[in-house]
């Protein structure tokens, strides 16, 4: 009887795993098949106005890239504070909790926040507003990634640095950050991958544009927002393009994730 229950439960959980994987496989296969229909060199060399996705890809990477460039130094500094300067104070724990909350805050809410503080006062959507929204999403991720990675650096290493007369600043910059480098870089890649696929915070902050643009003070192209717009159009050609864009976006996100993993694994060898 016990053995029977055992078999049954193990069978059920394997079945659940299979069902779950079937769904996920279904999505991936759909994405690949539908996405490759409209996939061609043409779409990479033309903007949306000419039925391509060049400006969309560029726009998305600019938005996420700038958010990352701004978010990294601030986030890393904050992580350093939590791990190195706070001496485990209540305040540091409080900031950690808040970061966790911010990290899981609905991205649409962040969009509404940025809409209220940037878009409403200026009266129009702008690339910078999108950058700001993505930065707000990014910041807590970088903070916690840095915090976690620094916490893995053994205390002895800090003490050994101090013990040869290095100042705290020296120890942090030259020893601890170096020891945690790989982990932090991985965290940053994953953080970038996370925000680059975001749609909701961009919907009405950076908006969407069918043209090539480098002017962040104006409405800015974004691949995710345009996927949303294209996919709901009654035009089959546009829907096809949306699938192609979705495939390209997913491809980049997955590559970034694999890259992050690879770097971490290299370290352990």
């Amino acid at each position: 009887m016990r053995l029977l229950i055992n078999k049954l439960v193990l069978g059920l959980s394997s079945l659940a795993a299979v069902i779950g994987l079937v769904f996920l496989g279904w999505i991936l296969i759909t994405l690949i098949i539908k996405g490759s229909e409209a996939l061609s060199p043409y779409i990479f060399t033309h903007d949306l106005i000419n039925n391509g996705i060049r400006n969309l890809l560029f726009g998305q990477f600019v938005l996420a890239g700038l958010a990352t460039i701004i978010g990294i130094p601030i986030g890393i500094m904050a992580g350093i504070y939590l791990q190195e300067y706070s001496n485990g104070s209540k305040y540091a724990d409080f900031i950690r909790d808040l970061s966790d909350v911010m990290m899981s805050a609905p991205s649409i809410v962040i969009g509404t926040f940025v809409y209220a503080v940037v878009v409403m006062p200026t009266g129009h959507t702008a690339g910078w507003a999108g950058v700001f929204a993505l930065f707000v999403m990014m910041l807590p991720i970088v903070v916690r990634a840095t915090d976690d990675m620094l916490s893995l650096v053994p205390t002895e290493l800090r003490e050994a640095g101090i013990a040869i007369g290095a100042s705290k600043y020296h120890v942090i910059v030259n020893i601890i950050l170096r020891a945690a480098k790989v982990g932090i870089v991985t965290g940053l890649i994953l953080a970038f991958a996370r925000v680059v696929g975001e749609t909701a915070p961009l919907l009405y902050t950076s908006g969407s544009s069918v043209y090539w643009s480098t002017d962040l003070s104006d409405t800015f192209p974004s691949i995710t927002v345009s996927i949303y717009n294209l996919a709901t159009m009654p035009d089959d050609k546009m829907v096809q393009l949306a699938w192609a864009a979705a495939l390209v976006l997913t491809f980049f996100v997955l590559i970034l994730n694999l890259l992050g993993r690879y770097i971490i694994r290299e370290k352990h060898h």
Partner: protein
Amino acid sequence: MKDIANIMEIQDFSFTYPKAENPSLKNINLPIKENHITALIGPSGCGKSTLLRAMNRIHDLYPGCHYEGAIKLKNQDGSIGNILDIKKENDFIALRQRVGMIFQKPTPFPMTIYENIAYGLRIAGIKNKNDLEEIIVKSLQDAALWNEVKDRLHQDARGLSGGQQQRLCITRVVALKPDLMLFDEPTSALDPISTLAIEEMILGLKEKYSIAIVTHNMQQASRISDYTAFMYLGDLVEFNDTDVMFTNPKEQQTNNYITGKFG
């Protein structure tokens, strides 16, 4: 006991950890003799590391520690200062350059072997490339590590074996020419052969340096130390010549401990 100058003298010293109710060290009086090796022994938790870590005030990394008494350190010019009076960051740095510390686990910095030694030297103000090179080669040779690492000076120090890493860490401290070196169970994470290599290294160092070492290994204490201090529950029970301590201790408690009756 012969009359030998003290590099450090710990007087009526008590220490309480941040937020702790009771002191972890109570009224310690202990001299550290110049150019000799002093071993600190005692059961786990008796306060050996705590005492050692007070000698370069590394405790102060964590605010809220409470000291009482005095720890007098002889300066190079022969004058004597109480390290518990230190307040300024610069003086802490100077203290730690004079009182080096080696930890239980090897702590190679995440840099090349060469840079590991150069790092402390640069902080100490030696920036000239030739000077650096000279000191680094010399200290590696002194540490008998040169032959093992001369072909990989510019590789990551974390690629060395545990024993080599530990010897590198000692070399790193020696290169700074400290007055006093503190070792906290430097061999407890190592195999017997690496342990022997490190013991030899420490023995060689006492010609030029004064040394305090915490160890759990009675044999090690008797092999390398000139003086031994036995601690128990935050008290210093006995301080004596190592020979005397291991053959004819004054205190019953010491006897019990070294004969393995407890601990």
